[in-house]
């Protein structure tokens, strides 16, 4: 186990102080049977090693002394200077080596060099809010070791954007011990994707998981531009109860550079199941794990990644509570309530009633 990196599928306990909020949640989801796209955290220890090897921290404190938060130009100038210092600071060899090793291991899992996303993972109170943090420091479709290393530094430096600095001043948060973790995560390359619900939305039956699935990225399933394959799975037994294979005429596929391409599905695939039975059961298992983890009916988005090996290629993209059926009660017609001879008699009589 490294000091400077932490794989999301690590068996060790993720510590929020070292991983930040985003990476901790990614690691927890993975260990709860909800594998997110694979990746690793560059821990706060790495940031600290960079900052503490010289007197950089003291220099920053001095540089910010007497700053007037209302002087926008001055704040901007000082912030830019500090970021420049962080960007040009030498990264200690052990930090660099471990980070590159973690990156290479991830590429190996993906069967070659594939694009990743690099995102900051703040330790909560240091930054205004997640959405703000996300504005400046999420870098998508990053390819190659040096590009990744550069984006990690940019994430570190994003602790000193003008807004982050003024936020901390306004809220009296000390810069002492300020740190930042970074998430490096595979960009999903969806061969197949879709949605799943841990309830049958046609009747509110909670013993079922219903899966919609089509080729490529999930947008067309969500927007209804394509009729997806539809599967019903028994949640307890994980048996496929029903399957409808549809004509899936179009798909969206990633270009690999941040854009998507819309194309016609070739004749051979359009009427074939977009999921194998094994994959379908894995998707259902994922949905069930999300339901269990969040304690309520879930509506998830998932994908089968084309780059990842079988067994590790079913990914959870998003999970949110289902709201329609969770609010109302399922209407079930029970012929024979209770148990014992009265109930048995009722059941027997109902059988002939069913004959009409």
């Amino acid at each position, binding site marked *: 186990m490294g000091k400077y990196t932490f794989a999301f599928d690590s068996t060790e306990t993720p510590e929020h102080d070292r991983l930040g909020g985003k990476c901790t949640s990614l690691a927890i989801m993975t260990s709860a049977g909800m594998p997110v796209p694979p990746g690793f955290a560059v821990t706060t220890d790495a940031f600290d090693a960079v900052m503490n090897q010289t007197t950089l921290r003291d220099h920053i404190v001095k540089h910010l002394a007497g700053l007037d938060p209302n002087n926008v130009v001055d704040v901007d100038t000082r912030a830019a200077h500090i970021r420049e210092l962080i960007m040009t600071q030498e990264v200690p060899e052990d930090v660099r080596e471990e980070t590159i090793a973690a990156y290479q291991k991830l590429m190996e899992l993906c069967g070659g060099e594939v694009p990743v996303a690099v995102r900051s993972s703040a330790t909560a109170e240091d930054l205004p809010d997640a959405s703000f943090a996300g504005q400046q420091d999420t870098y998508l479709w990053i390819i190659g070791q040096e590009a990744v290393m550069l984006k990690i530094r940019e994430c570190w430096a994003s602790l000193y954007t003008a807004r982050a600095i003024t936020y901390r001043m306004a809220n009296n948060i000390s810069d002492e011990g300020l740190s930042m973790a970074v998430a490096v995560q595979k960009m999903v390359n969806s061969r197949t994707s879709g949605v799943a619900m841990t309830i049958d939305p046609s009747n509110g039956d909670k013993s079922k998981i219903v899966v919609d699935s089509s080729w490529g990225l999930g947008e067309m399933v969500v927007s209804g531009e394509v009729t997806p394959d539809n599967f019903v799975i*028994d949640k307890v037994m994980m048996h496929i109860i029903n399957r409808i294979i549809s004509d899936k005429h179009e798909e969206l596929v990633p270009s690999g550079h941040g854009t998507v391409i819309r194309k016609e599905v070739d004749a051979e695939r359009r009427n074939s199941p977009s999921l194998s039975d094994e994959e379908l059961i894995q998707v259902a298992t994922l949905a069930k794990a999300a339901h269990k983890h969040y304690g309520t009916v879930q509506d998830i988005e998932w994908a089968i990644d084309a780059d990842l090996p079988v067994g590790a290629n079913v990914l959870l993209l998003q999970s949110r509570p289902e709201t329609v059926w969770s609010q109302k009660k399922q209407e079930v017609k029970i012929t024979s309530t209770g148990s014992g001879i009265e109930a*048995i008699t009722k059941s027997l009589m109902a059988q*002939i009633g069913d*004959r009409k």
Partner: protein
Amino acid sequence: MFGKKAKAMTPSAARKSFVSPYDLPAPKGAEGWQDLYPYNLVFQENLKDKENSKFWFCDSQHWPNVFKPFETVGVEFAVRCLGAYNTRHYIIPPANGIEFRIHNGFCYMSPVAVAPELIGDRVPHFMERAGFYFQNWDSLLENWKKKVLATIEEMDAINFEALPDMVDIEVITSGAGIDPTAKMMADYDRLIQLAYKNWEHHFEFLNLGYVAYLDFFGFCKESFPGIPDLAIAKMVMGVDSVLFRPDDELKDLADRAVKHNLTAVFGKNNDAATTLAELAGSADGKKWIAAWEKAQEPWFNYTSGNGFYGSDVYWRDNLDLPMGYIQDYVVRAAKGEQLHRPKDALIIERDRISGEYAELLDGEALETFNGKLGLARTVYPYVEDHNFYIEHWTMGVFWRKVRQLSRLLHSYGFWTEPDDMLYLTRDEVRPVLFDLATGWGVGADCIAPTYWPAEIERRRKIVDALMTARPEPAFNEPPAEINEPFTIMLWGITTEQVQQWLGADEGDPNQLKGMAASPGVVEGKARVIMGPEQLDQLQQGEILVAPVTAPSWGPVFGKISATVTDIGGMMSHAAIVCREYGLPAVTGTGSASTKIKTGMKIRVDGSNGTVEIIG
């Protein structure tokens, strides 16, 4: 089996029909087979219209082979007694019994419904009678075991021995004045009656076990639409059935052999007598023999058949059989393999399943679920256990006595082969016994040796000719829909299955559809086994493909990786055993044993009920 006939039997003109038994010729050389069986078991010419108005399905699950005349005793006793409990004991409101006929040597069945206007009046009687049994289940079952064991004991005490040259002097000195022939004839009658008695008891609890199971089944189907039948079976299943005890005993014996360093003796694969003689040479070996002897009564009253055929071999009558299984087990135990069924894991899985379904319910629905599940679990062990007491133990003793009598009469030259008495119906045996009593008494030749050998030869040819043809799956027009749950559950006969039989669903010839009887997916080499005598061909890891299996094939289930059968539902023997052993099973495929050949690579999906030929 409990009804649905009024509607179910209404013919639907749009559908294809199965052949009428009246239009199905006898296989070549089997002409005149009707005379071999009692008149009331064959389709009579003067009842043609009436019989043709009914749908009959072949029960090759219980009777996969052609009956020899004596062997009709099994179907007659079993199905008559089944019906009597519905019709006369518990007054099951919608259902009487099942009619049965023999045609071309195989058994066909047709359930008998109750006229709709009579059903209501039966309800209070059913509630009073069945209710009494449910309320007093445990004490009545305790008493049941006593009754059944007493019958077995009485049957076991019967012996057919050679008649003396002179009556015993005791007969003279005690002034008894009676010779042994009266006893012989009475013993024969008693043997038949005792078997009949235990077949009555067989159904004393069984039908009630099924209705309680179906009550829970129906509730689950309504609460969780589409719930797999397998889920319901697994929630109810027991893991400690006595049905598995004989096999467990063999495993214990194998473990004991390994523990006491006797592996080498078993490794020689000698027959039982040679192995036992060698074991007798050491102290540990003697202790092993003591354990082996202790296990025999009652657990070796166990057949690799199903109890319905005179040719069924019982372990205690052929010790080479259990010894052979033990030798296989010893090899595996010596490798450190865990032989016993994963009982704890089965219980954990059972409770996980019922727990997760229960979690989806609340309030009254949850109470209902727990109540019905509780009752189903109380009554269900009987559904498995009875099989040991009746099919194995009772019928094991019965057939042993039948063979003893047959061999005795063979020794008098009455027939050519020792077991030829099976070519007589049970009612033809009585005059034969009187023939013996007469010849012996008069001091003249019996007539039998000049009459039966030729007659038996004629019958043997007919039976052999009947065996050359597989049975038709059904006769006449099928109902538009088969929704009678017993037919589906026990025989695996569904609307789709009947359509498949009719050839309506032709589809991919390499795809077979059946009941998802035990979950899991396995690919492997198929081994087609047409009867228990071929079981020794099975190799480790092969997939067993058979017309039907018996629970007593137990020891082979440790060897195979999956099972596929032609006949059988969720509650068929193959299904129950595979669930116990954690093996995938697809039952009721209709034609697996003819479409699949030994050596083919097949993929068995026991979760979805499909079998695919892949190479």
